């Protein structure tokens, strides 16, 4: 007979024996990204496997900056992602609020259309969207075209709708009886209560914009408006690929996201779970 604590120990050891190698497999590419960002440019092609970092990070970064004006592209990315996140959270919240809390003709149809767009792959949308924005509206190479077309985010709308419809209706009735205006109810009661969901949504939206490669590549070819992922992509030339630069850029782009995730993790998990429970 094994005691209860022995059984628990065995189970823990067994679980870790499976999970630790899996975690290492997941971490390996990230580790190699860090390693190659600190190695000389051609280390990636060396015949013996390099597993440890070296001291060439600053060098690589200087090359990257010289090739692409990387710092400016990071700044552009930050501006685009921030504006995108703030505006999109506001828009999706308002749409979610309307869908959760008001009855209007055609509400079901609107909801079905929003849900339906979730099933469309982005690549099906992006070409018509490009033709419409660049050719029909003539808005290519503008900040507007860079930020606004991706703003509509059906996942965000559904996310916020779910969050608002789970709040007890009596809260809003109480505010109405007190003479609080509808927009005040939205801003002062509903939005603060949806904070965990909004935090999670912010991360998702910021990340989506931060990582967006295809749309900025298509809609913009002005160098001063180039975003960081596009800048990294430009390092892949026909004859030469600057791996040191790419890896260094990737590290620089990943770190702020990693930091944000760690800081907001609690909200992130709570927000996603809020949609799942009940």
């Amino acid at each position, binding site marked *: 007979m094994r005691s209860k604590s022995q059984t628990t120990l065995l189970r823990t050891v067994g679980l870790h024996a499976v999970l630790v190698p899996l975690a290492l497999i997941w971490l390996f590419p990230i580790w190699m990204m860090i390693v190659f960002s600190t190695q000389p440019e051609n280390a990636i092609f060396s015949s013996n496997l390099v597993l440890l970092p070296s001291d060439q990070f600053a060098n690589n970064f200087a090359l990257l900056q010289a090739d692409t004006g990387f710092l400016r592209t990071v700044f552009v990315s930050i501006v685009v992602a921030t504006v995108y996140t703030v505006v999109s959270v506001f828009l999706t919240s308002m749409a979610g609020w309307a869908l959760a809390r008001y009855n209007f003709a055609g509400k079901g149809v609107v909801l079905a259309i929003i849900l339906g767009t979730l099933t469309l792959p982005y690549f099906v949308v992006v070409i018509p969207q490009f033709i419409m924005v660049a050719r029909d509206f003539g808005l290519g190479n503008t900040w507007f075209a860079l930020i606004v077309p991706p703003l509509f985010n059906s996942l965000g709308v559904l996310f916020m709708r779910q969050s608002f419809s789970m709040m*007890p209706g*009596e*809260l809003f*009735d*109480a*505010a*109405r*009886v*007190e*003479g*609080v*205006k509808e927009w*005040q109810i939205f801003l*002062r*009661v509903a939005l*603060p*209560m949806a*904070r965990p969901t909004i935090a999670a949504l912010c991360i998702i939206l910021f990340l989506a914009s931060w990582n967006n490669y295809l749309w900025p590549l298509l809609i913009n070819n002005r160098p001063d408006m180039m975003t960081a992922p596009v800048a990294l992509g430009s390092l892949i030339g026909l004859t030469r690929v600057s791996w040191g630069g790419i890896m260094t850029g990737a590290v620089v782009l990943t770190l702020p996201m990693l930091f944000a995730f760690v800081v907001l993790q609690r909200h992130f998990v709570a927000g996603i779970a809020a949609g799942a429970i009940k």
Partner: protein
Amino acid sequence: MSGVTLSNVQKRFGAVEVIHGVDLTVDDGEFVVFVGPSGCGKSTLLRMIAGLEDISGGEISIGGTTVNDVEPADRGIAMVFQSYALYPHMTVEQNLSFGLRMNGKPRDDIARRVTKAASILQIEPLLARRPKQLSGGQRQRVAIGRAIVREPDVFLFDEPLSNLDAELRVQMRVEIARLHKELGTTMIYVTHDQTEAMTLADKIVVLRDGRVEQVGAPLDLYDDPANRFVAGFVGSPRMNFMAAKVVDTTPGSVTIETDNHGSARLTLPVRQAFQTGDAVTLGIRPEHFGGPDGDGTRLTVNVDVAEHLGATSFVYANMATGEQLIIEREQSRSEMGKTELTITIPPARAYLFDSAGDRIR
């Protein structure tokens, strides 16, 4: 301060009519309780008075002004909800002052009202806390406080005590009665608990299926119910009902015989005319059965279960007949362990109902 008048108020959800032409007058300063089983429309009626639910027909007036198309905030009402409906991200003080702040009331006026409400409800030490740091009773006080700061003409309570435990419920019930005495404001209170209705109300409105069954002072409803539904709903434990048949009639009185319980016979004074063989229902409250030596028809019942509460006992008898009787006995100790009990039905305490459930007088 002002009263509330409903005339022929109706509510339909699509084709389904849930409130069927309710007429009601609530006088200035009166404490009126809407009572009825779940789904009877009492909360809907209250929400219609509040303006949270549109009315499909009729007219509601508050303080003599028709408010059918007036926004909830402009009706001079304040409402306390079953779930308390406190804003979880605000402190108690912010909860109390939120509506006033949003309406641009002057700062010192808000402070005065909040201080006054907090002192009435004795929640001053809680002002800096958030709702999740409060107990159920404290939350309910804050919810009531939020209504008080509005200084309304009419208070509306939607089952405010149903989330509290039994002990706290009694305590808060007393508090609400005290509040009514202190403020003297018109109050309309919805509950399914007839004890709350009996203890709080100046006037009870008994509702069933969206219709008013009877309106009256608590003891009037208890003493003189208009029909079998009200008779069964008011009073705890509920009135006993026994199926019976008319066996003899004389002008001014009727003799009936119960279908069960050993065919007990009873002669009662009635003005209504009857025919032999008519089916009626005999009603008698548990506390009105007499002892073996009392006046009226004697009945021997088999005791199934007895609940001894100390001062009184409730005896559940004759379950086998399908018509269980509940008998209240005051001398509980002497009744313990008996398997048979002889009781009497005093004619003066008996009620008769016809087959439609209406009271026979």
